[in-house]
């Protein structure tokens, strides 16, 4: 299972902070993004940053491991 987290404006558009996605062997970050972007298209209009297991990630071809924590994020506005 992949645990996907959302925060701020992305979470607000989706209506929750967490979803679980079934892990599939060979699953890439791009696969997960495409699946969720189709389901939550308005929220994913805001997504420009991603993290896997707490680290910034830019490579959409990154293979995911089972039990990963993935976050799709809009630009930050702290400070």
């Amino acid at each position: 299972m992949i645990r996907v987290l959302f925060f701020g404006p992305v979470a607000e558009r989706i209506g929750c902070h967490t979803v679980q996605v079934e892990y599939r062997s060979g699953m890439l970050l791009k696969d997960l993004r495409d699946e969720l972007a189709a389901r939550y298209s308005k929220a994913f209009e805001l997504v420009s940053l991603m993290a896997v297991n707490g680290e910034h990630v830019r490579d959409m071809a990154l293979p995911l491991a089972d039990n990963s924590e993935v976050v799709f994020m809009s630009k930050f506005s702290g400070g």
Partner: protein
Amino acid sequence: MQASVRIQHEDFSQDEEINALKSGSKRMGGIGTFLGCARDFSEGREVSEISFDAYGSMALSEMNKLRRDAIEKFDLLDARIVHRIGTVKGGDNIVFIAAGAEHRVAALEACRWMIDELKQRVPIWKKEITPQGDSWVVPHP
């Protein structure tokens, strides 16, 4: 003494943070600080409150990396970063950054660099609550 890097709901004391910074070294000849505050007016609207959402574990990890990077890049003697979350009102403190170095240039440049990097690297989002409705803040360059 409190940790050098923190995310917390409660307000912080600038004096306590600066004293903690200074206590580590008597070679410190310059301390640069940045205090970010909540504005009560934004984009032509009154703002009654600002609320924060954060990916807490990653935000703290990124802030710790940011402090280590700044110490290395600017040859600092020490640095501290404190960011509030939860809900704050106009005029309240949001973020405090302090950089201590042997000389003023490194301290001031490091402080500016840290707040700019924090805005790019640390997963925190703020929402302005106004009488006309709420809106997430679009980051300023």
